[in-house]
C-alpha cells in the first residue's frame, strides 16, 4: 500500500489547495481550544466544515478532525461534545491526544477510527500498545524525537499504523510534554492549544535592534536586516556562560523529503505536513511537491531522486529559509 499524504487545513481555502494538489487526507480543527492550533481566525465553523467535507469527498480525500488538547475535569463535556460533533459530521478519523477523550470516542462512536495525536507522546511499541489495548487506536503520529533507524525499528514492531512528520515547523521537544510556553505565558499547547500565543508577543524597535518579547521575556533581538523569527521559547537566542547563541535550536523547518524511500520501505503508513497556521498558498505548494515525490517513488521505488525545484521551494517556505532532517539524523541530536 502506498504511503499516504496527510495535509494541514487551517481554513477552507487551505483545505481546497491541499485537496486539489493531491492530499490523501486533510486534518482540521474546530474553532475553539479543542485543537492544538487554537489561533484567532483559524479553523472551521460548522458551515465551513460541511463545505470542506463535500469538497474533499468529491475528490476522494479523507478528512480527519484534530481534538488534540488536554481537557481539565471541568471542561470534559466540551471535548465530548466536539467528539459527537465530528462523529455527526461523518469524518474519517479523530486525532486525539488525551485518554478521557479517547475513551469517550471509543465507547460512544466505536466505528470512527481513532488516531493518537503526536501530543499523546508515544515513542515505543509498549506505549503504542497501551493506547491500542485500552482505546483501540488504529494509528499513531510519532513525536519528532526518533532517529530514522528508531522509526524503522518501531515500524517493525508497532501494533498500529504509524504516521510521521515530513515537513514543516520543527518542535524540538517531545510533543505533549513541553511546558516552555506554559512556563512563560500560562498558556500551553496541552491546555490551551497554543504555543507562544500572539497576545503575549511584543515587538519593539530599539537602539540595539528589533526586540521580540514573550510576556515580557526577551526571546531575541535582531540586528538590521537580520530575519526576525516569531518568538517561540525554544528558538530564542540566550546567554549560556559567556556566549550568546540559539541555545536550544535555530529557526529552521523539518524537511524529510530525502528520507521518503526509507519511510515507505519501513512500512510507515502516512507522512504528515505540519502547518494549519500557514497560508493556502503554502499548503498548496507543499502538498503539490510531496504528492509528486510520493508518486515518483511509487513509479520507481528503486530509483528515487528529488528535483532541485522541490528542494528550492521547500527551503524558501521554511522558517529562516533553513531546513533540517532534525532528530531523524543522529548528528542533529
Amino acid at each position, binding site marked *: 500500500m502506498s504511503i499516504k499524504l496527510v495535509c494541514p487545513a487551517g481554513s477552507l481555502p487551505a483545505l481546497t489547495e491541499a485537496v486539489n494538489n493531491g492530499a490523501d487526507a486533510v486534518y482540521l480543527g474546530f474553532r475553539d481550544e479543542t485543537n492544538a492550533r487554537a489561533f484567532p481566525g483559524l479553523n472551521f465553523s460548522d458551515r465551513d466544515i460541511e463545505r470542506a467535507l463535500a469538497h474533499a469527498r468529491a475528490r476522494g480525500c479523507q478528512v480527519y478532525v484534530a481534538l488534540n488538547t488536554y481537557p481539565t475535569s471541568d471542561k470534559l463535556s466540551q471535548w465530548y461534545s466536539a467528539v459527537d460533533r465530528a462523529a455527526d459530521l461523518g469524518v474519517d478519523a479523530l486525532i486525539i491526544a488525551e*485518554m478521557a477523550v479517547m475513551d469517550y470516542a471509543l465507547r460512544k462512536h466505536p466505528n470512527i477510527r481513532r488516531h493518537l495525536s503526536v501530543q499523546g507522546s508515544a*515513542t515505543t511499541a509498549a506505549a503504542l500498545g*497501551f493506547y491500542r489495548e485500552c482505546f483501540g487506536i488504529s494509528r499513531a503520529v510519532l513525536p519528532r*524525537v526518533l532517529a530514522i533507524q528508531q522509526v524503522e525499528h518501531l515500524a517493525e514492531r508497532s501494533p498500529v499504523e504509524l504516521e510521521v512528520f515530513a515537513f514543516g515547523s520543527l518542535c524540538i521537544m517531545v510533543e505533549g510534554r513541553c511546558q516552555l510556553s506554559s*512556563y*512563560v505565558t500560562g498558556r500551553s499547547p*496541552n491546555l490551551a492549544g497554543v504555543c507562544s500565543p500572539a497576545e503575549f508577543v511584543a515587538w519593539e524597535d530599539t537602539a540595539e535592534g528589533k526586540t521580540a518579547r514573550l510576556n515580557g521575556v526577551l526571546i531575541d533581538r535582531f540586528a538590521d536586516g537580520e530575519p526576525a523569527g516569531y518568538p517561540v521559547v525554544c528558538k530564542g537566542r*540566550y546567554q549560556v556562560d559567556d556566549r550568546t547563541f540559539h541555545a536550544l535550536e535555530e529557526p529552521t523547518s523539518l524537511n524529510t523529503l530525502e528520507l521518503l524511500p526509507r519511510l515507505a520501505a519501513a512500512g510507515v503508513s502516512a507522512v504528515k505536513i505540519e502547518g494549519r497556521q500557514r497560508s493556502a498558498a503554502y499548503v498548496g505548494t507543499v502538498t503539490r511537491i510531496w504528492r509528486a515525490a510520493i508518486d515518483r517513488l511509487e513509479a520507481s521505488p528503486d530509483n528515487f531522486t528529488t528535483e532541485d525545484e522541490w528542494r528550492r521551494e521547500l527551503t524558501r517556505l521554511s522558517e529562516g529559509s533553513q531546513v533540517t532532517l532534525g532528530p531523524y539524523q543522529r548528528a*542533529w*541530536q
Partner: protein
Amino acid sequence: MKLSLGPLQYFWPRAKTLAFYETMAGQPVDIVYLGETVCSKRRELRLPDWLALGRELKAAGHEVVLSTLTLIEAASELSACKRMVDNGEFPIEAGDLSAVELCRERGLPFVSGPGVNIYNNRALALLRDAGLIRMVAPVELGREHLVSLRAEDEASPEIELLAWGRIPLSYSARCFTARAVGRGKDQCGFECIHYPEGQLVRTREDQPFLNMNGIQVQSGAVQDLSPLVGELDSAGVDVLRLSPGAGDMPAVVARFRGALAGRPVATARDTISGYWQGRPGMD
C-alpha cells in the same frame, strides 16, 4: 501530608550520589524515588546499584520507588525499563506510557511521573483501573485543577506535587549540554557531569530564565511551595516532592518539616510558585 525526595535530575559522579543518599537516609522524608529519569547514557549507577541503595533506604525506614526514563527512544532503553519494572522488590514511578503499559500488563501497581499526562478526573480513574496508586501531577496543573481532579472520587489515587526544585519543562532528542560545547549526543563526553545543577540560560538582558540539563530543560528558578503548605493540604495534595539539588537538602527538608508543623515560612528570594496559583510557571 507526606514528604518525598524525587529522583535525582542531574548527573553526579558515583561517589557524590552515594554520599548524597547516605545523608538523605537519615532525613525525615517518607518516600525516596531512585533512578535515572533524564538520560540513559548516564550510568555512574546501574540498576543493581540503585537496587542496593533502595534496600539501604528501605532498611532506614523509607518507602522506596524506582523511577524510569521520561523519554524512551531506543530499543535498549525500553529493555532497561522492562528490567526495572521486573525488579521484584520496589514499585515503579512510570516516566512515560511505556512504563505504564509494562506495569499494566503485569498487574503491578505504579506511580505516574510528572511526564505522564493526567489532566482530569476521568483520566485519573482510567489509570487507576490500570494500576495507578499515586500520580505526580503534571507541572502546569495548579490548585484549581488539582481540586477538580480530586472531586469525583474518594478512592482516588494519591496526588503528589513538586513542592521544591527546578521545574522539568521539556525533553528533546537533542542534548543541549553537549551541543553548547559543540558536540552531538553520541559524542557527549558526559559533559553534564560538570554541571551539578545544570547550566543556567539567561536572556540577552541577563535575566535568569531556563536551565539546561542534558536533554531536559528546567525552569531557571526554583519552585518553592513551602509557604503554601496549608493550601496544598486543603486542596487534597497527599505528597510534597522535593527535587534533589546540590545545595543543602537537609535544610530544605527541615524547612518543609517546619511548615508542616505549622511554623510560618517566609517566601525565599528568587523562588517561583506561579503554576500553583494558576499563573505562568515563571511567576
